[in-house]
């Protein structure tokens, strides 16, 4: 499977960014990305140059828009037509999400716990959510060196809590990238697993996110497959277990070859964890070479599992990468 290195939250001069789409895409290419979602605030006018910039830079551009409202920011992507962001009151975001879905788009919470108005207007999510199945994803890592920020740790915990409640919802990173400015802080990448179904790469990427086929990292990409009853299941899929006493075998692969020279982690023993609804299910030490790790977990009592890679980054022990969930039913 091809894993597309994606940056899913960006802005240009068409809203409050300080870069043209061309500069943004060229900058993304330099940083080893294959794909960006253009998610300007409340407008899709920046997509006018989309085709040309894709051709010039080789960067796949997913059309999108960040609903930048009084009660929350909601990233939408994969839709061709505008959906009106201005009508949503605090208790009717579901109508907005339905309209986004009606246009073939996905809707995700952007930086749900960033400080809100008036410091950052509408940045904190205050919309009432009546049905979590309606939202496609949560941007759990926002900004640079995202994993150490308390607001992102809250978003990550929210995602885990929703998974524990039986909701199938994806998690992504987004830099909320406004300008071409160098940073020494680690950049997050959301890798989207492309299928072989018809459509453009942008459409395959949107479908990957819709199906939860995503893995997030500041360095090596971690992917996982589950094996049960002789069948293999990928990230985002649901393992069907015949007998509660069965074991599920997990094959977790760490690939250090991605975006080579564009990220750096100190030589160390990493810690690879399998997490699920009952907490840490298994863990082992992992080195800095490409390898596949095998785990077996009991199917009984588990509804989801993900892999997490932990280690020391800039002197801090933190999460380095995580897969989206494999579900168990």
């Amino acid at each position, binding site marked *: 499977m091809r894993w597309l290195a994606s940056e899913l939250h960006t802005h240009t001069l068409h*809203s409050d960014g300080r870069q043209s789409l061309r500069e943004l895409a060229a900058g993304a290419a330099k940083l080893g990305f294959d794909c960006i979602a253009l998610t300007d605030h409340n*407008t899709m*006018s920046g997509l*006018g140059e989309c085709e040309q910039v894709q051709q010039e830079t080789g960067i796949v551009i997913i059309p999108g828009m960040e609903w930048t409202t*009084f009660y929350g920011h909601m990233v939408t992507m994969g839709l061709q037509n505008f959906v009106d962001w*201005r009508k949503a009151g605090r208790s009717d975001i579901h109508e907005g999400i339905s309209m986004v879905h009606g246009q073939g788009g996905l809707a995700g919470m952007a930086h749900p716990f960033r*400080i*809100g108005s*008036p410091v950052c207007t509408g940045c904190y999510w205050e919309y009432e959510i009546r049905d979590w199945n309606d939202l496609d994803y949560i941007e759990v890592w926002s900004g640079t060196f995202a994993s150490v920020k308390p607001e992102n740790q*809250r978003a990550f915990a929210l995602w885990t809590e929703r998974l524990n409640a039986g909701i199938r919802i994806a998690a992504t990173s987004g830099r909320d990238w406004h300008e071409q400015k160098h940073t020494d802080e680690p950049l997050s990448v959301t890798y989207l697993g492309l299928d072989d179904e018809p459509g453009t790469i942008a459409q395959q990427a949107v479908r990957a996110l819709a199906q939860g086929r995503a893995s997030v990292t500041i360095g090596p990409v971690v992917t996982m497959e589950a094996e049960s009853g002789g069948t293999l299941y990928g990230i985002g899929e649901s393992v069907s277990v015949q007998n509660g006493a069965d074991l599920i075998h997990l094959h977790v692969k760490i690939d250090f070859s991605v975006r080579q020279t564009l990220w750096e982690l100190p030589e160390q023993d990493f810690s690879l964890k399998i997490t699920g609804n009952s907490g840490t299910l298994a863990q082992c030490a992992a080195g800095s070479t490409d390898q596949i790790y095998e785990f077996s977990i009991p199917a009984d009592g588990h509804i989801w599992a993900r892999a997490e890679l932990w280690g020391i980054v800039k002197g801090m022990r933190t999460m380095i990468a995580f897969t989206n969930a494999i579900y168990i039913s």
Partner: protein
Amino acid sequence: MMLLNVAGQLDPSDSKRHITYGFQLDQPAAVMRIRFAYWPKLLEDDGQAMEFIMESIDSYVAPEHQGPIREGWRRYLPLKNLITLSMDDPNGYRGACHRHDAEQSLFLSEQEASEGLMPGKLALGEWNVMLSAHAVVTERCSYDLSIWTEEADTA
């Protein structure tokens, strides 16, 4: 030809409110121009700003992380008013200009438009311009908004 020329005044209770103005485009035009300005942009009173910031920290930051963020409250200065503009022509949305500039001179035409707005035919009929007051932090915030068209030869 002048299509709309309005002014208004907002206060903090207008935060999170949309203000819509309708206007008619009755004659074909080559370019529509929009000038929008509001002032003041910044809340200069640090005491007042501190109150707003502390309220935000109380509402939005997890209790266990509030301490250091309260201490560093000055990093959120200056607080700003933010009013953004979006447009609708008789057939639908024509884009938004979500940015912090307190003075914006914008235009729309068939081939080109200011960033945030969408080029396209200037259809005759009822248009709307919406001001979205994301935040008003100063005691008073004044704005003025004018929209006019130009003929082909003056464009």
